[in-house]
C-alpha cells in the first residue's frame, strides 16, 4: 500500500538538517504500524512524506501505486481526498467551526450538498461516540473529544490509509487507550491501513508492527504479528 524507496529528507536551515536518511520501507494494505523513536528522530517527517504533506529531498514515495513525488499540488490533494485520512497530535480542528461543521468539511469540499454532508458527518460523530456534542466549538470540547472529532473527520470517505501523528500524545493514558481502541476498531471495520506515530510503548502494543527510527534512519522493524 505504502512504499518508500531510498527516501531522504534534508531541511535547509542555517545548516542542513538530515531528518530522514535513506529510508526503505513497505507497508501492506490493512497493516497497523507504529512508528517509534526519540524526539527529533524523524517520525513526523516520515508520516508527512507518506501523506504527501511534504516532499522528499531524494527517493520515491508510492501510495497505492502512485508516485507522490511526481504529483502536483492539486493532484496530491485529489489523492488525499481518495486515499488518506490524517489525525494530528494537536487535533488541527478549525476553531471557528463546530464539531459537526469540522467533520462535514471534507464532504462539502467534495461538492456534497449541505444537508447531505451534515447527515454523513453526524453518522461519523456517532461512530466516534460524539453525536451529542456536534454543535460545540473545538474550544468547548476536551482534548480526547477533539481528537475523536479529528478522527471522525479523517474517516470521511473511509480512506484506505489512516495516518496518525501522536494521536494520544496530548491526552491522558485512559483517554489515549480509548482513542487507540477506536483506531483499531476503525481499521477492522473498514480494512484500513493505519500508521501511527507514538512515543508510548503501550500505544505501540496495539500495533502488529513497530518501526524504530533513530537520527533519521530505520533502526528496526519488528514485523511482529499477533
Amino acid at each position, binding site marked *: 500500500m505504502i512504499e518508500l524507496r531510498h527516501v531522504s529528507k534534508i531541511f535547509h536551515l542555517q545548516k542542513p538538517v538530515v531528518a530522514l536518511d535513506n529510508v526503505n520501507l513497505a507497508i501492506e494494505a490493512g497493516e497497523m504500524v507504529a512508528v517509534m523513536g526519540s524526539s527529533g528522530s524523524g517520525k513526523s517527517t516520515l508520516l508527512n512524506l507518506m501523506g504527501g504533506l511534504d516532499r522528499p529531498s531524494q527517493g520515491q514515495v508510492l501510495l497505492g501505486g502512485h508516485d507522490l513525488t511526481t504529483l502536483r499540488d492539486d493532484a496530491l490533494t485529489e489523492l488525499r481526498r481518495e486515499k488518506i485520512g490524517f489525525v494530528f497530535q494537536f487535533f488541527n480542528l478549525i*476553531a*471557528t467551526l463546530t464539531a459537526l461543521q469540522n467533520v462535514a*468539511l471534507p464532504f462539502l469540499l467534495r461538492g456534497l450538498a449541505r444537508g447531505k454532508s451534515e447527515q454523513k458527518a453526524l453518522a461519523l460523530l456517532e461512530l466516534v461516540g460524539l453525536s451529542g456534542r456536534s454543535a460545540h466549538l473545538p474550544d468547548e470540547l476536551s482534548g480526547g473529544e477533539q481528537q475523536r472529532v479529528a478522527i471522525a473527520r479523517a474517516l470521511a470517505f473511509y480512506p484506505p490509509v489512516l495516518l496518525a501523528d501522536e494521536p494520544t500524545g496530548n491526552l491522558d493514558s485512559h483517554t489515549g487507550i480509548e482513542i487507540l481502541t477506536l483506531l483499531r476498531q476503525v481499521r477492522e471495520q473498514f480494512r484500513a491501513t493505519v500508521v501511527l506515530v507514538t512515543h508510548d510503548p503501550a500505544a505501540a502494543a496495539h500495533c502488529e508492527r513497530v518501526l524504530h527510527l533513530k537520527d533519521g534512519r530505520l533502526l528496526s522493524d519488528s514485523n511482529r504479528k499477533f
Partner: protein
Amino acid sequence: MALWLISFQNFKIHWLKNLLTTFGIVLGVAVFFSMRTANRSLTGEFHKTIDRIAGKAQLQVTAGEAGLPEAALEQVQSVAGVEIAVPVIEAVVQSQFGEEGRLLLLGVDFTGDNRMRGYQIEEDAGTEIEDPLGFLAQPDSICLTREFAKRNNLKLQDAIELDTAAGHKRFVVRGLVTPGNLASAFGGNIAVMDIYAAQFVLNRGPKFDRIDIALQSGQRLDAAQQHLQRRLGPGLKVETPDQRGRQMEALTSAFTVGLLFSSLVALLVGVFLIFNSFAVAVTRRRKDIGILRALGATRRQVQLLFLSEAFFMGVVGSVAGVAAGWVGARAVISFMDRVIQGSYNVSVRTGSVQAEPLFIGLSVLLGIAASLLGALIPARAAARVDPVLALQKGKHQTLLGRETRARRLIGGALLVLALLLTLTPWATRRSVQYLNFGLVFAGLALLVPSLAHWLSLALRAPLNRLFGVEGLLACDSLIQAPKRTSSTVAALMFSLAFVVSNSTFTASIKQSFRNWMQQSINADLFVTTSESLTSRIFHFPASMRAEIASIPGIRQVDSVRIINHDYRGSPIMIFSVEMESYFRRAAFILQEGDRQDVSNQLTHADAVLVSGNFSVLYNVHRGDRVQLATPSGAVPFKVAGVMEDYSSDKGTIAMDRQTYVRHWRDDRVDTFDVMLVPGAGPDAIKRRILTTFQDQKRLFVFTNGEFRSKILVIIDQFFALSYVQVIVAMAVAVLGIVNTLFISISDRRRDIGIIKVVGGMRRQIRKLILLEACCISLIATLLGGAGGAYLAYFTNRTIGLSLTGWWIPYSFDWITALLLFPVMTGVAAAAAWYPANTAIGLPLIDALGYE
C-alpha cells in the same frame, strides 16, 4: 529591557503587516498635518504680503470693495497725529507670462509714497533725467522687481503687456525695485505704477483702494486708531495691517472644518487598524505571552510590552505622516489658493510651506495617542492571558469581544442620544456637533459586531445558492469569527460612511444650486469683464448700459454690481441690480414677503432683500433692520423679504442699484444682463456686442447656457475640496481593507492548511477566501452606506446649516453609494488575492506549523 528583544524579533518577522498597520497612522497624521499647515501657510503668506507692502504704514483705511472716494485722502491727512497718508490701489493683474506672471499691481503716488515705502528704485543709468520720480509717473511707466525682471528676461526700457480694463496694454519698464521688503512680497511679483495711471488701467474711477498712514512719532497706535475711526465715521474702516490680514482666516474657515473632520476620520480608521492588528497579534502571540508570564513577567510588563510596540509604531507613523503631510500641504496650498481666488476674489501667492514646531509636535503626539488608543484594549487582553491555558496546545482563551448584549445596548443608546441631540436647539453649536459626530461613530463601532453578524446570517442562503459550498463556508467563517470580521468591517464602514455622507452633502447642495440657477439666471446674454466670472478687478462704467442697449435686437439691459462686504467680520455678498426689471424676469423664490410688496419697497426706500442663509446665519427676518457700514456712513436697511439664494456661503444682501449707488457712491458695473427682443438669435447678438466694443474694452459675452456652465465650473471648483475629502476617505477605505484582510488571511494559514489536508483544492480555497473578503466589503459597504446616509443628514442639518445657513433639501447620492459596491468588492478581491495565494502556496507542513 530584555522584553524589547521580543518586540524587535516580532517586527522583523511581521514587518509587512506592521508596515501596513503603521500606514493608517501615517495617513491620518498626514491629512491632519497637511490641511492645517496649508491653511496656516496661506494665511501666513497673506499676512506677510500685507505686512511687506505696508512699509512704514501703521494704519490703513479702507471702504470695502467699492473703494474710497478721493476726497477721503484730504480728510485723513487733516486728522491730527497723522504724519504721512498716501493713497494706494492694489490689484492682481495678468501679464503675458502666464500663471507665473500674475503681478500684484500697486498704484501709488511716487512722490509721497517714497517716504512710506522707501523705494530703492534703480533707473536707467545712461539717460539723465531731471525728475526721476516724475518720469516714473508717466502713464505708461511701470516698475518691476529686479527678481521678476530677471526671471522673465526683462531689462529697463523693455515692454511688458498687461491685461487691463481697456484690453491688453503695453507698459515700459522704467524702473526696477531693488531687493528689500517690498520686492520680496508676493513672491517678487510686484509691479508699481502711478496711482492715476492705475485708476485708468483698472477703470477704478476717482477712487482709491486704501489709504496708508504713518503716525507722528510718540502717537499711541490704538488711541490713534480709535481717534481716526471716530473722525472718519463707520463707512470707512481703520485697521492695522495685521488686523487686515485676518480677513483671510474668515475665508478659509469653511474648509478648515471640513478638513478637520476628514483628518479625524482618517485617524479614527488608523486607530481601528492598530486595534485590529494588535488584537490579532495578541491572539497569535498568546503562547509567547504565556511563556513570559510563566517565566515571571507581571501583567503590567506584558501590557507595557504591547503598549511600547504601539508607541514605537505611533512615533514612526507620525513622523512619516508629518513628512508626507509636508509634501501634501504644498498641493493643498495651491489648490486652496485657486479656490479662494475663484470664490472670494482674494489672491495669495504662496511661497513655502510654513509649519510651527509646536504644531509638528502636536501632530506627532496625536499619531502616538491614536496608536496607543488602538492598542490599549488588546494590550489589556494580553495582560489577562492565562499562562496555563496559553501553553496548553489546542486550547483557546477568549480574550476579546464578549458582553455582546451590553455592547449592543450601549451602542444603540449612543445612536439614539446622537439623534436626540440633533433635534435639540443646541445642535448648531460646534461643540455639540463634534460630540454628536463622536457619539455616532462610537455607537456604530459598538454595534458593528452584531450588525455584521446579522448581515452574515442573511447572506448565508443567497451565497450558498450563488457560489455553492465555498459561499457557504465563507459565510460560516464570517458568522463564527465575528471578532476577526468586525474590525475590518468597522474600519471600512467608517471611511465609506464618510465617502457617502460627503458625496451626498455635496450632491444635495449642487442639486439646490442647479434648481436655483434655473430660476434666477435667466438673462439671454451676459457681458462681463472677466473670463472666469469671478475676478472683479475690472469694471464697466455705468454709461456702457446705454451703449449696449442701443444695439438692435436688445430689449433690455440690467447692470449688476457685486461686492464682498464685511459684515460682522464675515465677507458677505452685496448684489445690486435694477430691481424692478429683475423682479419682472427672474423667478426666484421668496421665503418671506410678497413679491409685489418687496419689489415696491426695494425701489422706493432703503430696503434690502436678504438671502435665506443670511437670514439663518444672523437671525434676520422681514421687517428687521440690518445695519451696513457704507462709504457714506452706517445705514440701517430695512429687510423687505427673504429670498432663496445660493450665491454666497457667507450670506447675500440684494438691493436696488439706485440704493447701492447712492450709499456706496460707486456706479461701476460688473456684469450687464442682456435680454433680447423675441426672435433675436443670442449668438448673432453676442457677435454684434463683441464687434461694437472691439479694441476699446476688455469684455466677454456669454450666452445663458455658457454662463450657467461657467458657474457650474466655479461651483465644482468650490466643492473640489470635498472631492479631496472623498479621495482621502477612499484611500483610507482601501488601506483599511488591504491591511485587515492581509492580517486576517496571513493569520489563518493554519486553517487554510487544514482545509487543504482534508481535501480542499487550491481554487476552492482561493474562491472561499475571496468570497469571504467580498462579503466583508459588502457588509461594510451596506453599513457604511446607511451610516453615510445618516451622517449626511446630520452634516446637512447641523454643520452645513451653521456654517452656511443653507437649508439644503436632502438628496441621497445613490450613484456614489451604489458605485461603491462594485468598486469596494473589486478592491477587496484584489486585496485578498496576494495573501490568499501566499497562504495557498505555502508548503503544508509550514502552514500546519512545525511542532
